[in-house]
C-alpha cells in the first residue's frame, strides 16, 4: 500500500502538479506555503505571538471561513431560488419542503450569515481591545470597517429574498430610513428600490446586489485586507511594533534591488525597534493545523444548528397588512429603536453615518503606540472605556428592541 502511494507520489503527473517534496523539512514546508496558490495567502513563517489562540481567537479567520460557507450554500440555493415576486416565496417553500437537504442548506446559509455578522463584530472588538489598529495598521482597520458595512449590506439584501411578511416589512421600514438622507433622500430610496414601492424591481435589485455585486466587493476587499496584514508585519504583537527609528531603513534598502521582494514593511519595523524581533515559527504545520481544527469545529456547530433550528419563514408577503410589531433584522434593531424615538434623519442617516465615520477615524484620532498587542492595556484605559460604552449602548438598544418591544412598539416584558 505504502509502495503504491510512493509510486503515485513520484509519478510524472503528481510531480507536475505538486512541485515540492514531503513537507517534513523546513525547505519543503516553505515551498508548500509559497508554491501553493491558496496557501500563499500565508507567509512561510509567522510570529509566535500571533499564533496564540487567546490573542486573536481566530475571529478574522472564522469570519472568512463563514464567508466561504455562505458562497457555497448560496451557490446551491441559486439553483432553485427564483427572484420574482410571484415565484420567490414558492421557490423557498420548495427548497425547504421538497428539495433533498434543501432545508439544511437554507438553514446553514441563514445561520452562517448571522454568525458572520457576530464573528466580524467580535473580530473588530478584538482588534480594538488589543490596540492592533495602530500604526502601521491604520488603513487596514479602515478596510475592515468597509468589510463590516459590506457584511451588514449582504445580510440586509438577503433578507428580502424569501418575499415573506418578515422580509417585505423589514425592507419597507429599512428602505424608508433611506429617506432620512438630507435633500436627496427620496432619490436614494428610488435608486435602491428601482421604483417607489417594494416590488419586482426592488427584489431583482436586492438579488443582484446580494449574489453578485456585494460578494465581489467583499472578496476584493478581503484579499486586500489579508495582503495588508502581511505587509504590515503580520499579526500585531508587543514586540513586533512600530517605533520610529533614527536608522532610515527605507532609504538604506532603496540601494539594494533585492529588498523590493524580500523586505516588506516588517523588516523596517523590526529594525526600528529597540526590542528583540518576535520569534518566528513555520506556518506549516503550526498555523495550518489550527485553522483546520477551527474550521471543523465551526462547521460542525453550524451543521448541528442547521439540523435542529429552522430559519424563520412567515407567510407570503402582503403589502396590505403590516405585521404588528414589524421588526428589522436584529443587527439593525438598535437603529430601529433609535428611529422609533426620532425621525428617519437620525436613525436612518445621521447616527449610522456618524458611527461609520467615527469608526474609520479611530486609528487617526490619537496616533500613539500605547499598548499594541496586549488585551486591555492599562495605558489605554480611556479609549477602552469609550469604545466599551458605545458597544454597551448598542447592545442595550438591541436587547430592548428585540425583547422588550410589542405591538405598536410599546414597552412589554419578554415573558
Amino acid at each position, binding site marked *: 500500500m505504502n509502495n503504491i502511494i510512493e509510486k503515485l507520489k513520484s509519478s510524472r503527473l503528481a510531480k507536475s502538479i505538486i512541485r515540492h517534496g514531503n513537507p517534513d523539512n523546513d525547505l519543503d514546508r516553505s515551498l508548500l506555503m509559497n508554491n501553493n496558490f491558496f496557501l500563499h495567502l500565508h507567509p512561510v513563517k509567522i510570529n509566535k505571538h500571533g499564533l496564540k489562540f487567546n490573542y486573536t481567537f481566530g475571529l478574522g479567520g472564522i469570519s472568512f471561513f463563514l464567508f466561504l460557507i455562505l458562497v457555497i450554500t448560496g451557490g446551491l440555493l441559486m439553483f432553485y431560488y427564483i427572484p420574482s415576486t410571484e415565484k420567490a416565496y414558492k421557490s423557498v417553500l420548495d427548497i425547504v419542503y421538497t428539495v433533498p437537504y434543501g432545508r439544511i442548506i437554507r438553514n446553514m446559509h441563514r445561520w452562517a450569515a448571522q454568525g458572520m455578522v457576530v464573528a466580524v463584530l467580535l473580530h473588530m472588538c478584538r482588534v480594538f481591545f488589543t490596540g492592533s489598529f495602530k500604526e502601521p495598521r491604520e488603513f487596514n482597520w479602515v478596510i475592515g470597517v468597509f468589510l463590516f458595512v459590506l457584511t451588514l449590506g449582504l445580510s440586509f439584501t438577503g433578507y428580502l429574498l424569501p418575499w415573506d411578511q418578515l422580509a417585505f416589512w423589514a425592507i*419597507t421600514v429599512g428602505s424608508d430610513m433611506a429617506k432620512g438622507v438630507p435633500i436627496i433622500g427620496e432619490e436614494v430610496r428610488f*435608486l435602491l428600490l428601482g421604483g417607489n414601492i417594494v416590488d419586482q424591481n426592488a427584489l431583482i435589485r436586492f438579488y443582484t446586489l446580494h449574489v453578485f455585486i456585494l460578494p465581489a466587493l467583499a472578496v476584493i476587499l478581503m484579499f486586500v485586507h489579508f495582503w495588508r496584514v502581511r505587509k504590515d508585519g503580520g499579526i500585531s504583537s508587543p514586540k513586533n511594533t512600530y517605533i520610529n527609528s533614527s536608522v532610515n531603513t527605507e532609504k538604506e534598502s532603496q540601494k539594494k534591488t533585492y529588498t523590493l521582494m524580500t523586505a516588506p514593511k516588517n523588516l523596517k519595523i523590526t529594525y526600528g525597534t529597540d526590542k528583540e524581533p518576535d520569534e518566528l515559527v513555520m506556518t506549516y504545520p503550526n498555523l495550518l493545523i489550527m485553522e483546520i481544527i477551527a474550521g471543523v469545529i465551526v462547521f460542525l456547530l453550524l451543521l448541528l444548528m442547521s439540523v435542529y433550528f429552522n430559519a424563520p419563514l412567515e407567510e407570503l408577503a402582503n403589502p*396590505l397588512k403590516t405585521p404588528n410589531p414589524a421588526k428589522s433584522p436584529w443587527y439593525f434593531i438598535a437603529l430601529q429603536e433609535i*428611529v422609533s424615538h426620532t425621525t428617519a434623519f437620525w436613525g436612518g442617516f445621521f447616527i449610522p453615518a456618524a458611527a461609520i465615520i467615527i469608526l474609520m477615524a479611530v486609528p487617526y484620532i490619537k496616533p500613539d503606540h500605547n499598548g499594541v498587542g496586549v488585551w486591555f492595556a492599562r495605558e489605554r484605559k480611556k479609549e477602552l472605556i469609550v469604545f466599551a460604552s458605545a458597544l454597551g449602548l448598542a447592545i442595550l438598544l438591541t436587547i430592548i428592541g428585540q425583547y422588550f418591544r410589542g405591538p405598536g*412598539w410599546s414597552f412589554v416584558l419578554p415573558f
Partner: protein
Amino acid sequence: MNDNKKESIISQITEKKISRKKLISMIGLGAFSASIFTSLFAAVRFLTPKVLYEPSAKFSAETPDTYKVGSVEFVSEKKTYLVNDGKGIYAQSAICTHLGCTVNWQAGEKEYHCPCHGSKFDKDGKNIAGPAPRPLDRYHLIKGKDGRIVVDTGKIVDENARLT
C-alpha cells in the same frame, strides 16, 4: 555631465516646453476624468428606470353617497381611507409619515395607530404621538364621469380640500 549643468540645460529648455507638456497632460487628464464622470452618470441614469410597472396612482372608489357623514372607509389595496367628516369627503393616506407602515383606524378611540413604532394620528390625521414628523397626507379627489370618486394618490393636497 554634472548635476549643475543638467539643471541649467533644463532651465534653458524653458517654461515654454514644460507648459506645453503640462497642457497636454492636463488635456489628457481632463478627458480621462470627463470619460469617468460621464460613465458614472450613465450608470446612475441606467439604474433609474423611466417606465415603472407599478399600480396606477389613480383609482376609482364608490359614488359619493356611499360615504355617509362620520364614516371612515378603508380601501386597503390603495392604502387610502375615504372619510366624510360632515364638511365633505376627503381621501386620507394610510401611509405612516414616519417610515411608511400602514396605519390602522381605531374606531373606538377615533385615532389612526401605526403598528411599526407606535405613532398615533387623530381623526383628522394629525400626528399626536410617537415619532411621526407630520400629519398623514391627503390625496386629490374628484367626481369621475361615471359618478364614482376618482382618487389620485400621486397628488397631495392640503387639509381643507373636500369633495362636497
